[in-house]
């Protein structure tokens, strides 16, 4: 029992790394995804389609491969080694964050775009006919519908990102998985460290789901409520 506690204490050293990987890449990914989705909505046509194709390709490539390219490939480029970028790409931690945010951007932008396209056109026209400006239309007529349609798939995506952070240990980031794998290699005890790590990941996911559903209840505007009032 005390052995298990020792393991748990050692593995929990990686909790901060895992959580910060998760939260920072989530935030960066969301900002990038909003920009990409806004670009696709604002400039339809060939530009939007080429951006969409790029995002499609990123979604088709495994995260592990992107991690390897950035961690093993980028240091060979002289313009990265000789500029300020080197301080970023020299650390496996920031490489992992950049890769996670990059992949997250590709998935989230598609969710945002899909949620925007699901917004009923009549709703936008009604808001415009009431004399609302562009931003007001967005805030009153489009954003609530987007939140309602986009939140469930976004929750799934956030959970997937949380699972993906475990891959960071392949480029020597010492997160929860990294510590668990280190104990496994050192002690040849396979079950205990990995099961403890799995338990920690499940706890993180449970909390994430809880936070997201609370957030959803706070910001979501009911779709039926408006009809009742009318």
């Amino acid at each position: 029992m005390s052995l298990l506690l020792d393991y748990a204490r050692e593995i929990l050293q990686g909790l901060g790394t895992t959580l910060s990987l998760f939260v920072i890449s989530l935030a960066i990914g969301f900002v990038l995804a909003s920009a990409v989705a806004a670009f696709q909505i604002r400039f339809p046509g060939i530009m939007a389609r080429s951006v969409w194709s790029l995002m499609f390709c990123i979604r088709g490539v495994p995260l592990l491969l992107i991690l390897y390219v950035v961690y093993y490939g980028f240091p060979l480029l002289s313009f990265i080694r000789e500029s300020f970028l080197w301080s970023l790409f020299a650390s496996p931690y920031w490489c992992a964050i950049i890769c996670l945010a990059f992949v997250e951007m590709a998935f989230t932008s598609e969710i945002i775009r899909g949620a925007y396209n699901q917004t009923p056109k009549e709703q936008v026209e009604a808001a415009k006919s009431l004399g609302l400006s562009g931003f007001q239309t967005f805030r009153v007529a489009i954003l609530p519908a987007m939140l309602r349609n986009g939140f469930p798939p976004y929750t799934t995506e956030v959970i997937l990102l949380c699972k993906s952070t475990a891959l960071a240990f392949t480029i020597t980031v010492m997160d929860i998985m990294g510590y668990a794998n280190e104990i496994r290699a050192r002690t040849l005890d396979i079950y205990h460290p990995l099961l403890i790590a799995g338990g920690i990941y499940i706890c993180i996911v449970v909390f994430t789901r809880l936070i997201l559903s609370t957030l959803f209840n706070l910001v979501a505007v009911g779709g039926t409520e408006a009809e009742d009032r009318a």
Partner: protein
Amino acid sequence: MITSSLVPKMVNFLIDYLTSGWGLQFLSAIGTSLMVAALGFISCIVIGILCTLFARSGFRGSVALVNLYTYVFRSLPDILLLILIFYTLDGAIQALLNLVPGMSDMRLSAYVPAVMSTSIVLGAYATELFRAGWADIPLGQHEAGRSLGFSPFQTLVLIILPQVYRKIIPHLGSLCLISMKETALLSIIGIPDIVRTASLGARSTGSPFVFYGIAIAIFVTFAILCSRIFAHLERSARQNRAGA
């Protein structure tokens, strides 16, 4: 005349190129990845159907059990499960075999844990998918099939599954793509898949961008093919429905 002499030359060049460098290695790596992806995809669909049937069977606790399965394996990192199964399966099977007297030792290939972990993780997603597709189908369909004299199995295969299939095709496409992406993890347990071949090549030749580029191209090609195929399947399913 020019083309007739050019074509064999091109073919010869291609064969030379493929057999001399990393071509063959990449070809066998593609085969490996495709095989594991296909096995994982098929078994995750089987798991999805079985779990949905079990959850709808009405046994006490079956719904809770299936919920637990999907919740746990949609939260657990895939790589953790893969490493766990990879290092323990051999020992577990050895221990089981030792219980039976007279059994010789058996070595498992590394592909077994790879396919197992892929199908367990994807099975959780497939289960959620099938349950969502199943939920819309009225119970009356099942009773109608039974009253027309179909056996329960026939009702399932001929009446229920085609309707579920039509609802979930787009999601099956993304599941197929994920099962291919999942094979990238095999490189961590030393199976010579696309990613491992690419990183071996990158390390031994010192030109990572060429090798990782080839690997990325393979995955992107697969993604495009996959989306084309499933878009086609979706269209034909919709046409069948319109015709019927």
